[in-house]
């Protein structure tokens, strides 16, 4: 059976991981490649790298990072941040990235999704979306949640799928950073609507939260950052908890 995926997310700035990391065995906690390797050894199913300061100037740093990860890590990974045109994505995919994620750029220019799907196949195209509840409506937010749009999240995700997205990474800004659990209610709604894999993000604080998001929302994967980086949740323990709860994991 297809296993539910656990995905640590690493925020990268100028080729270094930024969020605090609290692993015992790390020689260099700021080295995303070593961190990625550690996660792959622990049983992470996939990795997401978010280049939070992606600009034209440090694009080369990002490409070098992608190559280094592809050389050393034997699980798939996605890279996101600052990808605005087919050319950007082409370079990253040729450097060994398995998928690229686009967020604001796709909202500003939805045709980008069609272009990417045609150029690389839809399985390479992850649509990352940040959603927040405003006056009873889930609305798409840009720039890490700082900029609100009037676009309803469900409508946007449906459009993204129709245009050729291969996967959705949905972050609930209301839950992100709270450690109170994923937004299982809204994620369940999205999951019932889309026909492509859905990655849940935002709110992971305990192992039970992962059980809940798989059981209640039925999502395909769950992503988290700090609970993994600070060692609050160890992936082998989490996998065991999920297995005991009857969730299929690798």
């Amino acid at each position: 059976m297809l296993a539910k995926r656990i995905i640590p997310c690493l925020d990268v700035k100028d080729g270094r991981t930024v969020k605090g990391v609290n692993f015992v065995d790390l020689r260099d906690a700021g080295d995303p490649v070593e961190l990625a390797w550690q996660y792959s050894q622990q049983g992470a199913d996939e990795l997401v790298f978010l280049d939070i300061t992606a600009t034209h100037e440090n694009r080369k740093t990002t490409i070098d990072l992608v190559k280094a990860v592809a050389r050393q890590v034997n699980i798939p990974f996605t890279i996101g941040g600052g990808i605005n045109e087919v050319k950007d994505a082409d370079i990253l995919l040729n450097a060994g990235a398995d998928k690229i994620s686009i967020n604001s750029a796709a909202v500003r220019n939805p045709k980008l999704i069609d272009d990417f799907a045609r150029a690389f196949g839809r399985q390479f195209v992850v649509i990352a979306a940040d959603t927040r509840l405003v006056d009873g409506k889930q609305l798409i937010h840009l720039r890490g949640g700082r900029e609100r749009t009037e676009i309803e999240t469900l409508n946007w995700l449906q459009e993204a799928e129709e245009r050729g997205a291969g996967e959705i990474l949905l972050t609930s800004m209301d839950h992100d950073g709270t450690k109170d659990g994923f937004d299982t209610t809204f994620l369940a709604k999205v999951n019932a609507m889309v026909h492509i894999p859905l990655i849940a993000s935002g709110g992971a604080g305990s192992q039970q939260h992962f059980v809940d998001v798989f059981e209640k929302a039925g999502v395909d994967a769950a992503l988290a950052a700090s609970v993994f980086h600070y060692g609050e949740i160890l992936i082998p323990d989490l996998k065991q908890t999920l297995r005991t709860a009857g969730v299929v994991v690798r």
Partner: protein
Amino acid sequence: MIGIVNYGAGNIFSLTAALDRVGIGYGMVNEASDLDLYDRIIIPGVGHAGAAMEKLVQSGLSSYIASLEKPVLGICVGMQLLTSFSEEGNADLLKIVPLKTLHFGGRVTEKVPHMGWNSIQIQNGSTLFQGIEDNAYFYFVHSYFIEYEADFTSAVCRYGVDFSAAIQKNNFYGVQFHPEKSGKDGEQLLLNFSRI
């Protein structure tokens, strides 16, 4: 040494990186005469099967591949190319293994693409899977699948339907999953291929 068919269908960086990790030597096959330089051949491939077949034909390599007697391993779309036909682009393929490549869409209620780690059931102990446990997980990303057929299917996977996770006919092998992204078991499979 493994020759990698370099016909422009998808990036091969991940594949060469995996071969580097396990210490298998490789080179590129750009034209027909290069096929003689290696004792086994890998056909990689991602993206659209019909488009990949067109590129293989344009490379001038397609007519030589079927007559190879050394071990050949197709990966993902590279595996699908070994079959007769794909619904992706309604394309005629190499016809080495008499099977069809079909679309998941309309045939299963599961989400498409089939993306992630799925367990496989190894059939009749193919040498490709030596040292790999039955029901091991491999990483899949695909929207089209090769039908199950007892004679040629060497590993089965289930995703709404039973399909061929791996096929074999004589010296031709194919895997639908990505061994270069499938952790230790994937690396073991590449090692096994290098020793066939």
